[in-house]
């Protein structure tokens, strides 16, 4: 493990920001720390950087315990949420700052700065001041400034939060490409699951100061191990009594479940040729246009589910009676989740075959 946190605890006043946090990160990986606001993700990042001290527990970087090593000696590059570029220095001086502190000679500094300016594609703008740059350009400069002293680990705090939606998309892929090109182990914090899933090699999900789950985006999505992750990832609908749905039987100790939009099919009356007996009746409660599809809210037996429907299909109206086929759902208890398939569909299948 390149970066390792062992049983980290941190409390601010009476707020538990880190609660027995444990995880390890392999060298060269790009990790997304994902969680709702106040879940302790930024605190973890700041403790790795040395900007905060844990109350207890050990932090290792490259096998060395760094708890007592000051932030400036940890070999960590940090990109701040609002970039914190030095307002009274131009792009060149911003990127050169860390190198000048290391007392590198002039030529070395100049070569490294221009190498980075070329890398981030801002040639010719080296004498602009931060207020003369766009949000995306500022982020690139912040990235270059963090990389200039050749850190072993790059930490990014909500790197896309201050950028408008259109540029954000572009920057995500840019950053992913840059990091893989430089080959530096990186951790970024985000509250946006699309961002984490798209950019990160691995995701660590935090909630109330605890690490809920760590794994590849696909694993997190397909095999959520805790109820929180099951509800947090995807546009999940919570089902308070899944046994009332056709085809789902009570699992010992598990009362609630979540359903992902892709687990549900919504069909106009008469559209469903198969599995009709496995489907529920529902009433469309709301429809929202989501660009490439429709997001449909449907009421089934007093519970509200969210599903999607292709624009290609015949349109449906609010208040219309529809068939709702639930393929599967995640049932959960206090600590674990279980994927359940619709039994009624299996039975039907065997009969047809």
């Amino acid at each position, binding site marked *: 493990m390149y970066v390792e946190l062992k049983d980290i605890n941190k409390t601010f006043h009476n707020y538990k920001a880190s609660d027995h946090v444990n995880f390890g990160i392999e060298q060269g990986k790009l990790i997304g720390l994902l969680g709702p606001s106040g879940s302790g993700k930024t605190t973890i990042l700041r403790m790795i*950087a*040395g*900007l905060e001290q844990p109350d207890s527990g050990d932090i290792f970087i490259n096998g060395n315990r760094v708890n007592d090593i000051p*932030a*400036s*000696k940890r070999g*960590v590059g*940090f990109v*701040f949420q*609002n970039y*914190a*570029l*030095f*307002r*009274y*220095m131009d792009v060149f001086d911003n990127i050169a*700052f*860390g190198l000048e*502190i*290391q007392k590198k000679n002039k030529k070395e500094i100049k070569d490294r700065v221009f190498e980075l300016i070329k890398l981030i594609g801002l040639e010719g703008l080296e004498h602009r*001041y931060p*207020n003369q740059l766009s949000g995306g350009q500022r982020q690139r400069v912040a990235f270059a*400034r963090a990389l200039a*002293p050749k850190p072993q680990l790059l930490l990014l705090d909500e790197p896309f939060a201050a950028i408008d939606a259109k540029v954000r998309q572009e920057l995500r892929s840019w950053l992913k490409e840059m990091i893989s090109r430089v080959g530096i182990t990186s951790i970024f914090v985000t509250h946006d699951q699309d961002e984490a899933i798209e950019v990160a090699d691995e995701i660590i999900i935090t909630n109330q100061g605890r690490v809920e789950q760590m794994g590849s985006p696909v694993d997190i999505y397909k095999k959520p191990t805790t109820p929180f992750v099951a509800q947090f990832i995807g546009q999940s609908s919570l089902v308070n009594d899944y046994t009332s749905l056709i085809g789902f039987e009570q699992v010992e100790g598990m009362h609630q479940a979540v359903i992902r939009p892709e687990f549900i099919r919504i069909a106009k009356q008469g559209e469903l040729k198969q599995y009709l007996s496995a489907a529920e009746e529902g009433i469309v409660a709301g429809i929202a246009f989501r660009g490439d599809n429709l997001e449909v809210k449907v009421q089934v037996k007093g519970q509200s589910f969210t599903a999607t429907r292709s624009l290609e299909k015949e349109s449906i109206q609010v208040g219309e009676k529809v068939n709702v086929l639930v393929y599967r759902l995640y049932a959960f208890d206090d600590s674990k989740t279980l994927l359940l398939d619709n039994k009624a569909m299996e039975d039907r299948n065997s009969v047809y075959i």
Partner: protein
Amino acid sequence: MNIEQESVNLKKGTKVTKVVLIGVSLVFVLIMLVIPMLVLIVYALKDGGTKYIEAITDPYTIKALRLTIVATVTAVAINTFFGLFAAWAVSKFHFRGKQLLLTIIDIPFAVSPVIAGLIFILTFGRIGWAHDFLNAHNIKVVFAVPGVIIATIFVTFPFISREIIPVLNAQGRDEEEAAALMGASGFHIFRKITLPHMKWALLYGIVLCSARAMGEFGAVSVLSGHLRGKTNTLPLHVEIIYNEFKLSAAFAVSSILVVLAVIILILRNIVEYKAKKGGR
């Protein structure tokens, strides 16, 4: 038709308001500032140019001017030093008694300068608790130059820190944190990042502080003892010759203070203009 008329009326209304507002301000400035200034110049030159030059080249006047400048420069230097540290402490760290410190910094704004002078008489004077110690070390504060300087410092105490604190507060700590993370020392961070931020506010504070220090009368008057040629500053000197019924001489000396004030005002405007231009 009706609506058009109404909008015309409204415009007329605003026009009247405009004239009245500008008129009132002008008249007020004229009565309170311009006429007194003109009177001062007229009186200063009433007995002719030679008398004027005689008055302002009088040895006592020159000594008073010298003391005023010494007191001002010392007070500004010490207050800048203190102001920087106080502003730095208050805006960058959270600590107990921060609000108390802020309030204490403001006291000179609220206390009458005469009372400030008396406080120092009670502290350093014959009946003061520090008197024996000062006497034993042969240091004279009251009715001596150090007293004049102390009084000036007290009165101009808040100007610089008050100008810098809001600027530092608005800036936040991110840039400093970023610099510290890259291994910059505290002094390096201060010089390269914090100082450029508050440069204009600091200069503005220094200008205001100088203006106030030069004109200080009350506190200095109590502590100086009015020893002509020794502890008299320009404002005190003006009062003395005025009380001796040398009216035109008094006004001539006053005109030195006016010229200094005008220079400071011009400096202030330059600083304000640059700050606006530089405050990206």
